[in-house]
């Protein structure tokens, strides 16, 4: 072994360099966000908790067909309006089993109304409960009132507010001067 080899084995310069890399971090600023006092804001397209608007919903059932795990349960019946003799579909049940949902967004993509009647871009992720079977099964009323869900600060529940305007960027792509590609609700 040459002299140079011996000294390079003896004095571990590579180890000192490694120490330097980690040591520099001792003095740097840390970027930890202290949850729950502060929260990071998810992006506009973040797939969070559902919002549902039964006024806009036309009961086409496309969302239920699109869902890969079939967790949207729609039960409806046809009502005949006595005055105009027109047939109408009335939704009895529009339930989503959120505990099985994988938040893939296929239901939102399939919804044909404009703006959509079911959406999950609500930036809300705090849906944890202590009991799973009842609390995470959202009926039509609970979907609209967001009972049991902690909305992300600034997001209003579907009952009170609107849904995000253009989460997928299609409108912005079609009209590029329309400003930001995703408005918050």
């Amino acid at each position, binding site marked *: 072994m040459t002299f140079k080899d011996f000294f390079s084995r*003896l004095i571990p310069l590579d*180890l000192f360099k*490694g*120490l330097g*890399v*980690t*040591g520099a*971090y*001792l003095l*740097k600023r*840390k*970027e*930890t966000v202290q949850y729950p006092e502060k929260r990071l804001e998810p992006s506009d397209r973040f797939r969070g908790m559902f919002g549902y608007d039964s006024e806009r919903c036309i009961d086409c059932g496309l969302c239920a067909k699109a869902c890969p795990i079939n967790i949207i349960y729609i039960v409806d019946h046809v009502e005949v309006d006595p005055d105009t003799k027109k047939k109408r579909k009335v939704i009895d049940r529009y339930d989503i089993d959120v505990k099985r949902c994988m938040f893939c967004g296929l239901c939102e993509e399939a919804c044909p109304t404009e703006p959509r009647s079911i959406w999950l871009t609500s930036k809300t992720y705090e849906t944890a409960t202590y009991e799973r079977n009842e609390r995470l099964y959202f009926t039509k009323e609970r979907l609209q009132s967001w009972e049991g869900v902690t909305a992300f600060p600034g997001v209003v529940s579907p009952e009170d507010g609107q849904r995000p305007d253009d989460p997928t960027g299609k409108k912005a792509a079609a009209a590029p001067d329309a400003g930001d590609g995703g408005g918050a609700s």
Partner: protein
Amino acid sequence: MSEALLLYLVIPLVKIVVLLALLLLLVAYLTFFERKILAYLQVRIGPNRVGPRGWLQPVADGLKLFVKEDLIPTSAQRFVFLLAPCLIIVPALVVFAVVPFGEPFTMAGRTITPYLADVNIALLFVLAVSSIGVYGIILGGWSSNNKFSLMGGLRSAAQMISYEVPMGFAVIAVVLMSGSLSLVGIVEAQRAAHVWFVLPGILAFGIYFLCGVAETNRNPFDLPEAESELVGGFHTEYSGMKFAFFFLAEYANMLVVSSLATVMFFGGWLPPLPNLLAPLWASPALVWIPGVVWFAAKVAVFIVVYIWFRGTFPRYRFDQLMQIGWKWLIPLSLANVLAVGLGVLILRG
């Protein structure tokens, strides 16, 4: 009361109580400091929820370990199982009886030495007592009646024993330079020689510190207690306070190694350049800094270096570890003894 009673009973008792209390508190808070410093190295903040900025975390940990269920496996050797944690922590704490923390000061008219005893073979005492700790590991691994604990315990013991040899040789270099085995004598010798022993004994210091890291089973030599390895180590079957003892003993051993390194190589309680800069240290701005503060600062630096090592390096495989100890460190330390001996002979005639 009589002078003898005061001198030989009361003052030592007070010193023992103070020392034990401080040591146990420090060892518990070392867990907290390790977590914080490791976190800072890793771009995060450590524990900061319990108490103001996390300072009550060791209290929470201690309480948790107190109330944990005390499991003793039915097939374990009961007496030895209970004895092992004691065997590991008591020697680590006893060593501090001879470590000098500062220079003698006067209080209420009498000189008080801030160390428990100035034994004239203190270094030998330290090496002997700290070797007893190995028994704790072997017995802990064996009495658990678990083949993986046994393997882990034996590996750890083998590592500790093989690294004690170069450590002893490195310490001999210090003894050669200072001419005394007493720890107080070593510090005084550094004052008399106008230089900290780390400068002429840089190789001895390197070997000593490396062996110290291996003795305490710390990264990069922490295979016996690594979580991602196969065997859980000798403390697999322990729970509750007994488990805490193993970890406290590890931190206490870290403190022992750091304190000894400070005393032997870095001048103990002496400020830097004690004779050259004596007027500076005696100036009214700095004269109030007692030696204990210097000692504590140096030990703190060593502890930070321990934690820094843990945060940076991968760990060695066991056979590579043993190779380093036997094939590199022992010849190096022997060569070092030769060189230092020659140097002392030439320089002091």
